[in-house]
């Protein structure tokens, strides 16, 4: 079952048509929504929220009609916007509890959930501080907390790791991965950072010019690259590459002591072939793997 679906959707800003005749199903689980700037990702999300009136077509979210059941949909939906946003003049607990009440929770339940969700998002110790004093990382977390407080069935995340430092990004991705798996919560993530999508999502939809370019399971999209192998040495060794070339392999790309190698004819034992080449040239093999396409490869290929 699709968590959201649109059929023959048209959306215009003034005279500019951003989405024309888009038909698409967002699958259950965690789905990445990708595309270059101006591809219509944000527009799609905004029309699913009912913020934009489409000039044609139909959209459904959680089997509810967007045109007529907007508030009902938004009650089952959590949104983490891209820009910094909060309710001014409140500490974190009242902000999140307020967000819960706005979604329709009774006051006592909202406060209880606010504490629970803030703990979960790692803001337990900072929950009595005014949100205005928060750092970038904390602001991202509180945006997630206010989106989760009313226990939505579907979550929209717009650039959830924006502005986070490496450890902050790591923690955010872990949170997103966790809430989207086995908690009865479906997630749609918009991001320009494809490795983040790779880590959190099960499937992706790539939009361009308001049209679906590619849609599918990440695992399937990243299918292996034939006989390409990624090889890593202790340090860069021209001798190793020469030995491989002499045995009929081709070096596709190299970066420091890391190479992508293509074998003309699949060797009987890849491991033995590589270890012996290393031994011959006096290099130390530190790893090899059959190469897989990254999501970035897929993305750039599709949009060519």
């Amino acid at each position, binding site marked *: 079952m699709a968590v959201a679906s649109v059929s023959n959707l048209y959306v215009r800003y003034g005279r500019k048509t951003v989405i024309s005749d888009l038909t698409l199903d967002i699958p259950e689980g965690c789905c990445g929504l990708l595309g270059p700037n101006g591809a219509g990702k944000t527009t799609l999300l905004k029309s699913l929220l009912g913020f934009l009136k489409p000039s044609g077509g139909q959209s459904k979210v959680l089997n509810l009609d967007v045109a007529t059941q907007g508030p009902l949909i938004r009650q089952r939906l*959590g949104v983490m916007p891209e820009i910094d946003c*909060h*309710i001014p003049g409140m500490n974190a607990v009242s902000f999140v509890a307020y967000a819960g009440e*706005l979604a329709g929770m*009774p006051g006592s339940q909202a406060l209880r959930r606010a504490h629970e969700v803030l703990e979960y998002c790692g803001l337990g110790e900072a929950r009595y501080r005014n949100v205005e004093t928060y750092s970038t990382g904390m602001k991202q977390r509180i945006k997630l907390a206010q989106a989760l407080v009313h226990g939505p069935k579907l979550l929209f995340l717009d650039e959830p790791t924006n502005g986070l430092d490496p450890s902050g990004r790591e923690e955010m991705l872990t949170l997103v991965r966790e809430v989207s798996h086995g908690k009865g919560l479906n997630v749609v993530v918009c991001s320009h950072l494809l490795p983040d999508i790779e880590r959190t999502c099960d499937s992706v939809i790539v939009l361009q010019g308001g049209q679906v370019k590619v849609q599918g399971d990440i695992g399937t999209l990243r299918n292996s690259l034939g006989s390409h192998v990624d090889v890593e040495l202790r340090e860069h060794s021209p001798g190793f590459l020469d030995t491989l070339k002499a045995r009929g392999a081709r070096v596709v790309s190299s970066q420091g002591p890391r190479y992508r190698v293509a074998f003309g004819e699949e060797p009987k034992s890849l491991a033995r072939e590589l270890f012996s080449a290393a031994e011959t040239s006096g290099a130390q093999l530190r790893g090899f793997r059959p190469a897989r396409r990254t999501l970035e490869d897929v993305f750039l290929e599709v949009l060519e």
Partner: protein
Amino acid sequence: MSEQANPTQAQIADLSYRGYDGPLQSHALRWWTITRYSLRQATRKKGYVGILLMAALPYLLQAFFLYIGSQVGVGQGGGQASLSFPDRFNSAYSSSLLWLFLMTLMVGAGSIAADNRANALQVYLAKPITKLDYLVGKWMSIAIAVGATSLLPAVALFIFCWGMYAQEGFLRDNSTLFFRMVGACLLPAVLHSSIMLGVSSTNKNPRVAGAAYAGIYFILAAVVQVAGQIVPGDNQELASTVRHLSPGGLLEGLGKHIYQASDNLFPGMRGMSGMFEQAKPELWPMVAAALVLIALGLLVARSRIHAVEVVKG
């Protein structure tokens, strides 16, 4: 077998994220949530109680004068006591207007402006909140704060008068006074909150929004004063009406009509411009002007609330 020994009693709870399946309320009174939270924030501000007391002071003084009058003079004797009750209420009302205006600024300047700065609309509108819920909620929070500030001391004075003069037929002689009072006291709440909401929605900075409304309030007052001077001919009524066409003036003028106060305010009261005026301003132009201001404020606020940021250029 003791309870602890029962293996089925042991459990480890999963404390990670869980969904919420508790009750959710219907959408009907969602604006009230916004009003309640906004009011809670407003009443926590410094100076709130100060302004509340200052706005109550004119009513307190009236009560004080009545009390003194009843102690010193006999019956209706004594200078102050010669005023009719509606005149007293009107006088207190017009003296408290400035404080009601300040209350509006304090409670209302940031109502939407602060939200604009913090991008709070992104939070509100992603929840099951409509634009109308938001506007009604914000409007009510200003209206309730201002209305309470103006109405509560008036009601207190009314009860005081009732207690003092019940035997002398206070209720019989002033049968409509209570309703007039409620109407007059709610008028500033409605007018101020509508204009303030509009001004606040056009700004990102609460201070600037406050300054902007203060500017509108006082500059408009000055402009209509000047305009009143240069009214052609010797039409006192028209001149007086024109002079009342600012937010403050309208409230004062309409208050006079609602209380059916006499044209001459007794000297020595705190009414400032009132004591120089002879002619009563006309009702309908003022009603029209007030309606225009209210509509304008609400329309501006409505047009400024977007769920989607508008990209220019």
